């Protein structure tokens, strides 16, 4: 393993120089000739009937090219449960409901036109609390389902119920049990680059969509389905990623603005761009959903977990996106974080008139892990066991088959817990109650793909030109994670060239093979494996070429030498050795004899062979190109919601030391240790970037970030009042990289995009408890909540 030239090395990022010098073309900079600018009018109410919409003034404004309302576009339902339309015609159910849209020759004119649209509403009773919404007689958010059948409840028809073992049995075996009520709120993904797209039709009504999605083929599929309903069946769709300024879940589903942009482009027959401003990012994008948990757990006298019962209520908001599947990811920590034999889990998603929710980094894992890890601490205390020791007793181990049927292959959790304890100074610091305290929490997450759709595959194409340069057509999205660098390291390593020889082309449905999307921490794992497969094929082609031409080329070189220098004696060589591709290999741009790598004659620059093989002159010219599609042998969840949906799982532990100001309720993080089992660090610098970024997001989730909704309206749609942490708020983070190496991973790697976030908030909450004996079970842990809890505990 140690003889890798590029894998495992902190090679500097390649294309980021363009980003930091302002040259990279984000959607904001992206222009097409004749392009118009689209803008959306949103609802003024959380729930209302639209009585009338008057667009006359807007249409008359010079520079306006189209004004659309729900009456101007086909009444087609879209979304995960097909519970909304593109432009709302009769009823609005949330403040972000799209009521009208405008395309104009400048963003300013579009905005002015939006202001000129007059909408008359009749307000309807609304419901903003999921528990209230479940009660009989609560206002119904939807009167009918997608097929027009009357609905009687706000509860979504998504039954997330999971059972393994026997809870009652578990209860009987318990010496200690605890029950906790835990809750989390809305948080925004806060991408640096705001959302947007450009839709452009050619004269045959084929669509090119320049879009920031990180699931290009999913996006294409949804738009294709939409096309078949609006009379564009059979028209071609091409999705192209511009440079994506972060996604963190926002670009997973096809958002309504994309459909609106398509409609505006169709109407005007011009390219149309919709670009969100920051307020829209907060008000009109789906954030992470709030969840409330009732967690019950038990353990025996030795501290072994006996059962875990979790009931969750999720505020879905007014419509349903992919976010409604977060309970399936919650199931992972619920069923499989630590060894628990008996599990009961039920999640209820409820419609309300709040803005609807989506996925965010970690999917439902941060919410559920906050519940599980809060309960782990209260149970440890009740059982009189040190919280870190308690986790050690129940740690997951290699070879485990969890109640959800996840197959735990490589597992570095033990090392993670041990190193966090040691680095944070656990034994000296815990249990002092002197205003300083330490806390710990762990995580499990998919790290080898996540089979949420029937194909969890990833395709890659590799072509090598006559100069030895490699183009990789990669179906994932580079959303800032640094994949171009890592993929070129993997390609260079497995093909035998250098990373700087490799160009990676991302995100184009016309150029790339199918991919399930750059989400679920799956990209390095999937693309890495696919790249290795493709490179093996390409390498084979090159070596066949070499076996054919190398002997001839070496001989003719000798001839040339003899011509120049009559004294030169041609060495006697066994050319059969290099006439068999199996005897050859490539490394660092050189083709060489495996049995004698330093052979003075039997080695050759790769580009010499490539050129010779291409410029043959006899009708036998060859190019080097290979493709591979990696679809791992994983399972989708069965009827019982069980199945091994990933090839491998990531583990990690976070330890936090805090200081709490008892007079102000302020929490200061003195240090944070984040230990992660990453399989193998492909590029340590990039890996740490993922860990740091995720940890900071986790600190925000734990302490400061919250979207404040008042009767369905976002009251803090800006960075002044939404407390995203700044560079000045950095905390000391000590990362610990645990590398057990994973058999299924490319060079042993596992996914690490999301994990850092997951255990951060619960570790902070646990540390606060250790510091002052007060436990906050509702995120974020604001100074007000801490102070209130201190007062109540007196």
């Amino acid at each position, binding site marked *: 393993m140690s003889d890798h030239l590029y894998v495992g090395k902190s090679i500097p990022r390649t294309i980021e120089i363009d980003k930091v010098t302002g040259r990279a073309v984000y959607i904001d900079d992206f222009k097409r000739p004749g392009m118009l600018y689209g803008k959306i009018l949103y609802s003024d109410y959380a729930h209302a009937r639209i009585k009338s919409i008057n667009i006359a003034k807007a249409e008359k404004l010079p520079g306006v090219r189209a004004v659309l309302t729900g009456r101007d576009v086909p009444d087609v339902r879209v979304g995960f449960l097909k519970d909304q339309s593109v432009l709302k015609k009769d009823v609005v159910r949330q403040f972000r409901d799209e009521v009208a849209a405008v395309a104009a020759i400048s963003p*300013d004119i579009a*905005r*002015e036109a939006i202001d000129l649209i007059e909408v008359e509403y009749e307000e309807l009773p609304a419901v903003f609390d999921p528990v209230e919404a479940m009660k009989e007689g609560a206002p119904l958010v939807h009167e009918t389902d997608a097929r027009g059948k009357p609905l009687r409840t706000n509860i979504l028809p998504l039954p997330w119920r999971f059972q393994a073992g026997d809870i009652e049995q578990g209860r009987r075996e318990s010496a200690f049990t605890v029950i906790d009520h835990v809750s989390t709120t809305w948080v925004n993904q806060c991408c640096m680059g705001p959302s947007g797209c450009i839709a452009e039709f050619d004269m045959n009504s084929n669509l090119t969509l320049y879009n920031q999605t990180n699931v290009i083929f999913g996006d294409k599929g949804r738009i294709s389905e939409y096309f078949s309903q609006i009379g564009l069946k059979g028209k071609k769709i091409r999705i192209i990623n511009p440079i994506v300024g972060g996604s963190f879940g926002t670009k997973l589903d096809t958002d309504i603005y994309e459909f609106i942009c398509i409609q505006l482009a169709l109407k005007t027959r011009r390219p149309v761009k919709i670009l969100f401003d920051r307020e829209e990012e907060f008000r009109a994008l789906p954030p992470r959903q709030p969840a409330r948990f009732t967690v019950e757990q038990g353990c025996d006298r030795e501290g072994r977990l006996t059962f875990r019962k979790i009931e969750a209520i999720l505020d879905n908001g007014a419509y349903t996106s992919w976010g409604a599947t977060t309970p399936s990811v919650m199931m992972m920590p619920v069923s499989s974080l630590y060894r628990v034999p008996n599990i009961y889990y039920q999640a209820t998603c409820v419609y309300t008139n709040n803005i609807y929710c989506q996925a965010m980094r970690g999917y439902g894992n941060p919410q559920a892990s906050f519940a599980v890890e809060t309960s782990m601490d209260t149970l440890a205390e009740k059982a009189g066991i040190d919280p870190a020791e308690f986790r050690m007793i129940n740690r997951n181990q290699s070879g485990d088959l969890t109640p959800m049927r996840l197959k735990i292959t490589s597992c570095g959790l033990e090392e993670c817990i041990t190193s966090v304890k040691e680095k944070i100074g656990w034994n000296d610091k815990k249990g002092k109650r002197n205003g300083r305290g330490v806390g710990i929490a762990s995580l499990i997450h998919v790290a080898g793909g996540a089979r949420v759709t029937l194909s969890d595959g990833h395709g890659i194409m590799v072509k090598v030109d006559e100069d030895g340069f490699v183009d990789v057509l990669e179906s994932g999205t580079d959303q800032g994670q640094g994949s171009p660098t890592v993929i070129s390291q993997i390609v260079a390593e497995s093909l035998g060239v250098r990373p700087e020889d490799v160009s990676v082309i991302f995100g184009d449905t016309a150029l790339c093979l199918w991919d399930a999307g750059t989400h679920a921490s799956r990209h390095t794992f999937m693309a890495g494996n696919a790249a290795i497969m493709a490179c093996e094929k390409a390498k084979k082609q090159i070596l066949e070429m070499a076996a054919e031409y190398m002997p001839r080329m070496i001989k003719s070189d000798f001839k040339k030498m003899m011509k120049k220098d009559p004294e030169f004696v041609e060495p006697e060589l066994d050319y059969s050795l290099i006439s068999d591709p199996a005897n050859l290999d490539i490394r660092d741009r050189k083709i060489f004899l495996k049995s004698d790598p330093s052979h003075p004659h039997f080695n050759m620059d790769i580009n010499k062979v490539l050129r010779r093989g291409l410029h043959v002159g006899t009708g036998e010219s060859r190019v080097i190109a290979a493709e591979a599609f990696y679809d791992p042998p994983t399972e989708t969840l069965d009827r019982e919601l069980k199945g091994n949906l990933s090839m491998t799982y990531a583990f990690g532990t976070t330890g936090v030391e805090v200081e709490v100001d008892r*007079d*102000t309720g302020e929490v200061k993080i003195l240090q944070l240790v984040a230990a992660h089992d990453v399989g193998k660090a492909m590029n340590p610098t990039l890996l740490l970037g993922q860990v740091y970024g995720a940890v900071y997001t986790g600190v925000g989730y734990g302490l*400061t970030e919250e979207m*404040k909704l008042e009767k369905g309206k976002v*009251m*803090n749609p800006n*960075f*002044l*009042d939404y*407390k995203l*942490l*700044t*560079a*000045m*708020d950095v905390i000391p983070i000590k990362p610990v990289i645990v590398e057990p190496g994973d058999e299924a991973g490319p060079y042993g790697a596992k996914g690490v995009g999301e994990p850092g976030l997951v255990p951060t908030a619960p570790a902070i909450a646990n540390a606060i408890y250790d510091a002052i004996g007060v436990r906050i079970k509702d995120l974020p842990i*604001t*100074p*007000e909540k801490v*102070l209130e809890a201190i007062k109540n505990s007196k």
Partner: protein
Amino acid sequence: MLNYDYIKPESIKDVFSLLKEYGAEATLIAGGTDVMVNIRNRKLSPGVLISLRGLMDLQYINKNKGYHIGGMTTHRMLEQSELVKNELSALHDGASRVGSVQIRNVATIGGNICNAAPSADTAGPLLVLDAVVVLEGPEGKRKIPVAEFFTGPSTTVRREDEVLVEFDIPEDNSRYGSAYWKHSRRKAMDLPILGVAVALNLAEDRTIVDARIGLSVVAPTPIRALRAEEYLKGKSFREDVLLEAGRIASSEASPRDSIRGKAWYRGDMIKVFVPRMAKLAAERRGVI
């Protein structure tokens, strides 16, 4: 809608004549860090922006029978001034916590005070330093104590044809130690949940000769906690005395619930930070 002209006159006389010419259409702009935000948020739609950035002679900090700070002085200049740091410490605390370095490089103290946000970070410090605002109009100059300058959120006694040219801070501040606490959730790019400024004149025997307390974000304008100040005068500098002063100051405030903070929390924080700032002020004065 975003159509406005921009004029940058080179003298204060020209500013006056432009203000006269454009009347209500005109808005003065210094660093623009409030003005541009207000234009974007549509709270302001000026026909013409009259820049004060041609009046660079209004950028100064000096000591000459009292302290004089030009209206166009940036927060960054205040932050980097040793004089302000050592002798007007509360103002140094306030100015160095405004926004970020980028903001402080352009944002001015004159803009901060004329904008008259209840959360303005230099308001509390200027209050406890007993600063006087110097306004200049076509008819000449007039002086108004900062304590009388604000009339409500975003409103002041400044007339539309006047420019804030200077802050005068009395010389006797050299006998005071002062400190300002900005209570906020983040270390940068944040507005205070509340601000507490304290200036203390302490005798060697720890008797409080004089005390001034300024509170921001807890009333429609930044206020002085006069009863708490009165209570402190003549008392000995002791923990229980300071705590009582905090309680009195808190009762003088009228904080409200907002998305930035709850009223009860703000009230409680006054009780915490009046004593803490008093101690810091005393420490800086060198008495404790």
